[in-house]
């Protein structure tokens, strides 16, 4: 049986310094890795007989605007189908140079997921065969889920801004000074 400790120890033995951190939320482990090593770690998790994480459930990014230098965190959710075991892998990127290697050769499902991730967060997956927008209109000139952009559409005219939290002092808890 796989467990969190075992997976972490195997990775730590193999990659040492490249495994930066470790956390557990709701029994699912998250491992923080160095972004340049992401492909090697994924390949090892895939190839190793005891680990066998051959299925990529999800790939996404999170924007933490206050973590200067590590604003974008690319997250892989990997799955071992035989042993019914999940693991999360996280790689922090600098938002000014959000480059990370593509996993689309190893996991074909990463092809579209990486396009989505690029579409919404602007993560540049180096080596991706077709890194263009997948969900939003092609003319969109920003990355809508980055937190410096308001979620609301700016062309809307029929709302009372004070009642809906736009330009309002009362509802500016999510306001960020970037």
């Amino acid at each position: 049986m796989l467990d969190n400790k075992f997976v972490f120890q195997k990775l730590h033995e193999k990659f040492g310094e490249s495994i930066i951190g470790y956390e557990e939320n709701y029994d699912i482990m998250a491992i923080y890795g160095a972004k340049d090593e992401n492909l090697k770690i994924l390949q090892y998790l895939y190839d190793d007989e005891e680990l066998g994480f051959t299925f990529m459930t999800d790939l996404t990014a999170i924007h933490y605007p206050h973590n200067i230098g590590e604003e974008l965190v690319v997250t892989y959710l990997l799955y071992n189908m035989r042993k019914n075991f999940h693991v999360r892998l996280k790689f922090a990127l600098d938002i000014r140079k959000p480059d990370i290697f593509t996993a689309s050769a190893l996991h074909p499902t990463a092809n579209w997921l990486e396009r989505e991730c690029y579409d919404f967060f602007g993560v540049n997956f180096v080596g991706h065969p077709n890194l263009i927008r997948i969900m939003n209109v092609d003319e969109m000139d920003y990355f809508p889920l980055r937190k410096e952009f308001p979620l609301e559409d700016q062309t809307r005219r029929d709302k009372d801004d004070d009642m809906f939290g736009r330009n309002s002092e009362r509802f500016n808890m999510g306001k960020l000074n970037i």
Partner: protein
Amino acid sequence: MIYNKRPVTHNTNIKLVESPGGYEGEGFGAMQLSKIVGLARKNSIWPLPFATSCCGIEFMATMGAHYDLARFGSERLAFTPRQCDVLMVMGTIAKKMAPVLKQVYIQMAEPRWVIAVGACASSGGIFDSYSVLQGIDEVIPVDVYVPGCAPRPEQILDGILRVQELVESESIRRRSSPEYQELLKSYGIQ
């Protein structure tokens, strides 16, 4: 053998369209052409349903036997833009869908009318979001807005009746008027 045992009863509760008025005698009638055309168009509107979400479900009820849009001459639904008179947009239109909607509108032949059914088609509704078109009147001109989330079938019927009023009273020359050309131009059509 007697086949018709039961007496035949005809439905006499039928409302016919009234004559638009004019000078009539035996075997002839003289009246305004635009009124006859308006009368004919009004009672034979072919809807083109453009249903993208839940308002489309209400529209299906509207077309069903209970509410029966066919009573008003809109018997014939079609998904062929060139044959249809009124474009019924029902549901949230994402920004990526907007060019498709516009293309459908352009393919329709004049005269053409548009109904925006529901809050999303009219204004974006609750989806005040980067991905949703904030009302279809940003890409095509709209004649009638039906509010509601989703509107009941009666409201959709009311919208159709409002379009009928527009159709009936529309001047024959309206579509070639400079104002109308200007309107289309402001949407970048033609």
